[in-house]
């Protein structure tokens, strides 16, 4: 086994770690917060805030 063979395994391992991190966090967030909160984003927030500020 040469260094580059180890690098291949390392790349597979790191990829799996990054993937796992995202999937686990995704399930944690989805189970802790309601769908209403997570999908509450609306465009134009800054503009609306500016309008309120000047009102």
């Amino acid at each position, binding site marked *: 086994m*040469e*260094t*580059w*063979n180890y690098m*291949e*395994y390392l*790349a*597979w391992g*790191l*990829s799996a770690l*990054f*993937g796992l*991190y*995202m*999937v686990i*966090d*995704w399930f944690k*967030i989805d189970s802790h*917060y309601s*769908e*209403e*909160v*997570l*999908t*509450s*984003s*609306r*465009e*134009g*927030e*800054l*503009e*609306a*805030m*500016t*309008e*309120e*500020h*000047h009102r």
Partner: protein
Amino acid sequence: MTQVDITSKTMDGMGPHGTKVGLLRVLGPAHVWALGVGIVLVGEYMGWNFAVGKGGAYAALIACWFAGILYTCVAMIDSEVTSTVAAAGGQYTQAKHIVGPLMAFNVGLYLTFAYTMLEAANAITAGYLIYVVAGMTGYTGELDQRPFIVLVIMFLAWLNYRGVLATLTFNLVITAIAFVAILAIFLSTSGLLGGGIMQHAALMEGHELPYGWIGVLAAMHFGLWYYLGIEGTTQAAEEVRSPARALPFGTLAGIMTLLIAATLTWYVCSGVLPWEFLGDGVNGSVAPLFDTARLSGSNALIWFLGFGTLFATLASANGCINDASRAWFAMGRDKYLPGWFGAVHPKFRTPYRSIIFLVPIALIFALGAPLDQVITFSILSGLLEYTFMPLNIILFRKKWPMGSIKRGYEHPFHPLPAIVLLCLCGIAFFAVFLGYGTQLVAMVGFYILVSLWFHFWRYRFVNRGAQFTMPWPKPQGY
């Protein structure tokens, strides 16, 4: 606008309309520059040289400058509209407000396809670069590129998932290094600092336009490669601290940087590499700037340009993940796609579901599709998007004339840039048709089919009133 404290802990992302969790406004003009230039700069390191193969070195220069005019029009138009329509989704959101839902749906898909395929192409390239590095370090076996391709996509998706500030600060650093590498090779080889190695006259004599003017036309296809993706700056619109300032500043500084980088790249490479070798991006010069560095005889330049090539590739893939996920997120938020995609991570404040959803799609293209096909579909989607822009700005100026709505930037000489852009898009379509007619027809057929699906099925789920939440005046004539 600046009178509002958008960095306030109590107000940030918690404004009116019921938003409980929104995207984080933390970016400045430098991040916008890094997003736009970062996506594109890989085109200077590789890909543009296919234009030389199509029509010779002079044809590649003509294509470089005409494509430069095309993208300058794109940058000016984008700067005006996006500094006003400052929301995630970029051109998709512009189309939704200015043209209509069917156009918006199509533009949203153009964006997602163009960026996801470009991301896949970059990952393939990064895998290939690591394969080359392994060979240069004396590895004699057959290196498996797949784990490195997958790692690039997974690492950058993870970075995007964790937050936009770290993502685009990372892009800023690696893009700046890649750009400085181009300046360094120009200064070192042109004769400005020390001895020059340029041989333009000797290399081009008798090969000025080897395929005549039709070669120049065909070169336009790959001339786009010098700048493809600068329009991606608009996707940061909902995450910049001051859209009216940061978006025009970052975008216009970006196109200026690219015009300089593209011209220097052409000058350096065409002055050192014979056009037959330079124009063959498969069996000849895969990475022309790196090949030029190797001929310079300087080990420092070889290393610098080697890192520049890898950094440019990573920056492009990183920016593509950012942009594709924002376009997908914006479409989900408006229910053009399932609303599930419109979720924002409550801690990292990123469109996390859209980022995760696009990972397997990028992997499928990166591991299962040939590079040239992936790039062609990316270029075609981009070209369709540019064709929409002239129509967009003409309608924007008509519906909201000057003075009726506050603009962060007003582009000059309207409607001249729109007309020039439309004409150059027509030329570029013809150039693409010469080389990839089948793909062009297939792509247009695909968009017609999905448009029918959207019109007859999906549009019933769109929340028609709730998709327009900008506090804008009514358009003229409505």
